[in-house]
């Protein structure tokens, strides 16, 4: 991917219109690609469907027309209507931000970007917001106005309380009977045990799960310089901290937690991607596409491998 078209996330986040932010990021991402993913150059053939007036004539399969004298559109895997659920964490810890914008604003922008991208791919996109419980649910659809509906829900002010990932993940598993793609945007500042069972439950239903961990640079790099009374944003608990003695301890604990989270996701087949709010959102989108595409390629590769194997017998 061409990384020359990087957009400063601070500049993007200054735009108040969420849709505009998403469009700029997606367009910028597309500008960095050689081929349009819409054409699916590396996308495997999926099936034929009858031609309807208004379909793109470039999709017509002429060989099949020659054989049958009827028009059919060749569908590839990327044209399959997948169900995608964007799950956004709105707990109070997401309100933290050492930059001019919070993690929640960054996560919402990223969710809007992904929704826009997936909508362009004609996927069914839905939204679910949560803190301690599920707040809003928009079922995945691909109809006119669905994206605007999603944006409207993302723009709604959040009265976030504590973070409790286990319960929402169980509720997600119950609300999505059909297999699809679950994209979870959260800071995951909870014990690993809280989310491990939830992830296992969702994966057991056949869903694909992507966890995009949104962190603030102050959380990944210790930035306190003088003695302070640190206050937990979710519980209100106060803790006196000597920065000299706490830095090493914090980084050590944070690193252990990250490793545990990675291990838990790997063992459950969950894709984990961490990003900080000072990174360009295009990187997150590109990583998503890369991760999603690699998996799709592996999936379609598996399918081709199966078909080839069937023909050779």
């Amino acid at each position, binding site marked *: 991917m061409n990384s020359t078209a990087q957009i400063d996330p601070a500049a993007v986040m200054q735009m108040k219109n969420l849709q505009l932010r998403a469009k700029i990021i997606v367009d910028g991402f597309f500008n960095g690609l050689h081929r349009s993913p819409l054409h699916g150059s590396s996308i495997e053939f999926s099936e034929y469907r009858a031609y309807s007036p208004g379909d793109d004539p470039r999709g017509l399969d002429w060989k099949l027309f020659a054989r049958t004298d009827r028009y059919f559109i060749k569908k590839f895997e990327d044209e399959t209507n997948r169900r995608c659920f964007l799950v956004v964490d709105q707990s109070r810890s997401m309100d933290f931000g050492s930059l001019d914008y919070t993690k929640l604003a960054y996560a919402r922008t990223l969710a809007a970007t992904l929704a826009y991208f997936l909508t362009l791919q004609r996927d069914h996109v839905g939204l679910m917001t949560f803190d301690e419980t599920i707040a809003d649910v928009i079922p995945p659809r691909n109809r006119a106005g669905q994206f605007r509906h999603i944006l409207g829900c993302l723009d709604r002010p959040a009265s976030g309380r504590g*973070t409790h990932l286990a319960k929402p993940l169980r509720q997600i598993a119950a609300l999505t009977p059909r297999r699809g793609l679950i994209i979870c945007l959260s800071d995951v500042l909870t014990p690993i045990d809280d989310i491990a069972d939830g992830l296992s439950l969702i994966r057991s239903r056949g869903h694909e799960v992507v966890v995009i961990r949104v962190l603030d640079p102050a*959380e990944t790099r210790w930035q306190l310089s003088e*003695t302070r009374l640190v*206050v937990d944003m979710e519980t209100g608990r106060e*803790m006196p901290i000597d920065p000299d003695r706490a830095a090493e301890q914090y980084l050590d604990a*944070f690193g252990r937690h990250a490793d545990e989270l990675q291990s838990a996701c790997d063992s459950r087949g969950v894709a984990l991607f961490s990003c900080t709010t000072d990174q360009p959102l295009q990187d997150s989108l590109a990583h998503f596409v890369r991760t999603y595409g690699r998996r799709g390629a592996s999936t379609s590769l598996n399918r081709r491998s199966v078909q080839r194997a069937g023909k050779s017998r």
Partner: protein
Amino acid sequence: MSFLAPLYALGVLSVVGPILFHLVRNRPRQQSPFSSLLFLQPSPPRVARRSRLDDWILLLLRCLVLTLLAIAFTRPFFRSADETMAAPPGRHVIVLLDTSGSMRREDLWDQAVGEFQRLVDQLGDADHVSLLTFDREVTQVGSTLQSQPDLLESGSTQSGLAPDPETLRADMLARVRQLKPTWHVSRLGQALGQAAERAKSVTPAGPPESKPESAGRPNGDIQSDPPPTAAQVVLISDLQRGVDLETFRPGTWPAGVSLDVRHVRPAVGPNGSFHFMPPDDKPANEPRRSVAVRVSHFDDPATSGSQPGTYRLSWQSDTDDNTSEAEASLESSSTIQPGPDDVTIQVPPGQSRIVRVPHPSDRQNELILSGDRQDFDNTRYFVLPPQRRLRLRTLGPSTTNGTTTNGTTANQRRDGQPTDASNVRPSEDARQNPLYYLTKVPLGDSRFAVEVAPVTDDDPLPDDPSTTPLVVVTSPVTPEEAESLRSYAEVGGKVLVVLTADQADDPDAAWSDTLTRLSPEAPLSVGPRRQTDALLADIDFTDPLFAPMAQPQYSDFTKIQFWSHQQLTPPDQPWRTIARFDDDDPAICVRNIGQGQLSVLAAGWHPDESQLALSSKFIPLLSGWFWGGAGRPVSMPTRRIGQPFSENVDRPPDQPGIYTVVDGNQPQNIALNMDPRESETTPIEIDELERLGITLGPIAEQSARVETMRQLRDRELESRQRLWQWLLVAALGVLALESAIASRSRRSPAPAT
């Protein structure tokens, strides 16, 4: 070092604040929100060694500031070792001790003596005391103040030497213990006035050299008696309501002098009392039956309840031992045996009732009240007053039946012929005599027997006006008789000339001569007799003769006709015309002669000349002429102790009892009782004294005065030294030093640990 307000030293405890703040300073002040404390452990900051040392200095400086402030508020000062406090200046204490009759109750006198003892004990060595006792008079008992040599009572046996105050006080105490309350009324107003004058007039004692008698004390002490600088009055009394406060003029109490009231109270409750009422005017022919007595119930709200008092009045015989008469009566009041003539009465608290008690027998002189626990006034003495005999003299043709108002036989006729009462019967001629009607008017009563007696050669004028208030002249008089009448009027007698139609040859001239002789300097001109009907028209009802008939129901004289009357022309002065006929002729003319009075009636009152004698106005007119404007004199059956005595009695009249008059041919007894005002034992409110402008205030004990002086001296010392200002300056300096050190420690970075 001493302190004016040592309690402020508790402010030093405020140093606990900075210490506590210092100990809890480890807690950081800056707060930072963080997304989660999941990866953090508490790590309190380390304090550098140097920083800790700086903090201790700051802590000590802050504690020092608070300590200096607290000490400054205590207002410290230094007393020098050689500074001694002078004794408080002496006071002149004037003691008013009530010795009136009400102080005889229970143990009031003992309480009063005890109060005086306590007062003397609480005085200092430099204080002087003067003792005045008061009842109806103020009596000086003694004084320790040498500036008042008239009061100085020497209690020392050393001749020619002035005794010291201690000896004088002891002597005064001994005298007080020998005093006893009297039976007199209490004049508190007069006593307060004299005490106020004495308080104003306290003057310092003269130089010691001028008083050789003061050598009785060591020479070193002569100079050390400072004159008293303040006066105070102490009143020891039961403050009963009967005290006479009106004689004290409000606003005359001296400024700066306070009155300490030592109120002595009896332990028992209310006091029942009684006194005799003035006798009523019953006619003389009615037998005397009873005497009116007012029974009162005086309560003390502080000690009594609201129960009415039930009392019994009983007559008792007098005792033979007169000197202990009062005491014997007091003792016997509680052991009186009921009698058949006793009167029982119930009186509510604060009220009085009048009852009639049957007259006593000849041997009973004491009326005793039972049922009252305060028995100092439960016995009163009574003597049946003898009936006084008065005479109304007449000058004119006497009547033929000659009966008097009291049934006595008249004296001889004017022509000297005696009359025989058994053969007298009223005749038509008698009823035409003006003097006849004088005998029919009931001028006497149970107290006075009035006899109508013509003037005769054997019983000529002048008479004493006190026994012969009136002489009625109904015919012209001789010059000698006129002279006698005038002499009689000069000394207070009243002469009434009735201008009847005399049978003389020239009655007008005869009357004119009579009136000229009686009033030569202002003769009343007599004109011819007018034989016309006339009525009394113009009457001066302001004159004492007509004043009792001034009310509308009594002032109608139009029904009295006069068939004829003498014309009179009085000069303007000194004659006064107090009644006129309807033809404007004077009817009654009056003038004063010396201490007496001359009245002229222009017509007779007998039926030949008028209807006056037969009218209802005749009796009150004649009573007015006889008794004068004051009416009948009221004589009380008893007298009060303290009243002026004109008679000489067998012993000093200073206590209740029966006294025998030693003057005169006939023995006469007088009953003497305590003034009823002394029985009004309900105490007055202290506010009444304040309303008179008297400053009330207790007398300070010597120790309290010393303490007050010490406090004043300490305040003066502290105000001179003003150490608190220096302490405040020091506190400010320490505060500035603390601020400098604190700012320097904040600026310098903390070394790493």
